[in-house]
């Protein structure tokens, strides 16, 4: 019997929600890692029982957790003493050290601060974990301050891919209001050498050589809050998404504006169309319809809640420009929640399920591609991330 497993990261722990293919009755497991901020959990596409979690705290820093049994039990990779003296060092799974080796060719020591001065890079946390499409032991991690790390041993140790931060524009990157996080990692299923990433507020970058070198792909983005609205970098990209069948087409929720590219990021065009506001955080693509996309418009960058007290997901079936509100089952009065950038996901059942979590602690599911919605849970801590696994 088909099952869906929803992985929910919140400000105070993680939760796992499971249901059968009907998606009507749900079991709730959690809180896991109670009291810690869980920015993200994600399962391996090739081994769904392998799940990685980013656990962090302002007090005690970063922890990486891993489950090999679908979330029932968790371990800190390498967190136990290893009997083999030639094995990888223990207790290194939370060691995210920026590469300053001579091989990178530059010290990589500063980036732009809020006031325009230069500021040292400081590791704060892992925002996003992206397991490899082919190897369950390989996983990428997006960090704040913005950097891309990779583990090839199931999360026991991490190495930076320094070519990204070493791009000549690195010293110009500046944090957004939420910090300078590398929040999106998209792996091209047709080209293992190609990865897209997005950073707030540097913009979007692409590698075509497996992470050695990177190029900014922000042409067409316009941002009035930076000195040059058409600059190569400095755009506050909130989220990008692709459909695996068409990896050259990307959709973007920028700070303001919904954007689309049909040439792997070389050129972007705005597709906000008839949205009531084009500020927002998540953007997601239907599992089976590459031109059906979802966003959750937010009132403004000064008022981070849904407009008019109405929680509305907007769906475009035309790849942007034409949008319809989806409200059936969602609160349409006195609602003032936000939906964060990593808090929306889709399953891959025949009738595509759409899921999102709110800062008010609700996790909603639509088993019919957005036509109707119900709350799976209503009173979790503020939801930071939602991922879905579709299990056979």
């Amino acid at each position, binding site marked *: 019997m088909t099952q869906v497993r929803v992985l929910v990261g919140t400000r105070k722990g993680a939760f796992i929600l499971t249901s059968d293919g009907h998606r009507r009755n749900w079991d709730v497991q959690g809180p896991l890692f109670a009291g810690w901020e869980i920015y993200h959990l994600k399962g391996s596409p090739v081994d769904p029982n392998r799940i990685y979690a980013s656990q962090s705290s302002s007090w005690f820093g970063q922890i990486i957790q891993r489950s090999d049994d679908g979330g029932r039990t968790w371990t800190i990779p390498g967190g*136990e003493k290893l009997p083999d003296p030639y094995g990888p060092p223990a207790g290194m799974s939370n060691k995210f050290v920026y590469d300053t080796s001579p091989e990178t060719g530059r010290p990589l020591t500063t980036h732009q601060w809020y006031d325009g001065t230069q500021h040292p890079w400081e590791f704060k946390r892992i925002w996003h974990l992206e397991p490899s499409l082919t190897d369950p032991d390989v996983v990428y991690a997006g960090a704040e301050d913005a950097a891309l790390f990779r583990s090839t041993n199931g999360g026991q140790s991490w190495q930076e891919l320094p070519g990204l931060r070493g791009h000549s524009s690195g010293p110009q990157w500046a944090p957004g209001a939420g910090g300078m996080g590398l929040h999106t990692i998209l792996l091209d299923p047709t080209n293992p050498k190609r990865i897209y990433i997005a950073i707030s507020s540097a913009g979007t970058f692409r590698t075509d050589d497996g992470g050695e070198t990177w190029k900014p792909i922000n042409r067409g983005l316009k941002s009035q809050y930076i000195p040059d609205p058409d600059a190569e970098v400095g755009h506050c990209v909130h989220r990008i998404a692709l459909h695996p069948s068409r990896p050259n087409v990307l959709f973007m929720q920028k700070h303001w504006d919904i954007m689309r590219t049909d040439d792997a990021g070389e050129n972007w065009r705005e597709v906000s169309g008839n949205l009531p506001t084009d500020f927002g955080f998540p953007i997601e693509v239907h599992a089976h319809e590459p031109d059906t996309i979802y966003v959750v418009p937010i009132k403004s960058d000064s008022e981070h809640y849904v407009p008019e007290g109405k929680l509305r997901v907007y769906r475009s079936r035309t790849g942007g420009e034409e949008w319809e509100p989806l409200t059936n089952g969602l609160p349409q009065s006195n609602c003032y929640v936000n939906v964060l950038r990593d808090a929306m996901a889709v399953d891959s059942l025949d009738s595509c399920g759409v899921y999102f979590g709110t800062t008010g602690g609700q996790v909603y599911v639509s088993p019919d591609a957005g036509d109707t919605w119900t709350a799976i849970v209503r009173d979790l801590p503020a939801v930071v991330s939602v991922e879905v696994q579709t299990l056979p």
Partner: protein
Amino acid sequence: MIRVVLPYHLRTLARVDGEVLLDVAGPVTTRTVLDALEARYPMLKGTIREHETGRRRAFVRFFACREDLSHESPDNPLPEAVASGAEPFLVVGATAGG
């Protein structure tokens, strides 16, 4: 034996209840106590002291014998009462909301 009291979240992480008892060879200092703690519980590396610099994390404090030792040199001898096991060495999360 050196007695160490960890904050709730680090006890959970290390999967211990109550105090941790440690053998510390040589002088008993903040550094040698934390070295022994991390050797016993590798998952605590990086949670009390930063990986690269070994410095105390900003929101972590060290108390013992009713004194705040957070800003003492990590190589200063800890009070005799800690070295003898009469008093615990406290690792405390700074009070800062949450």
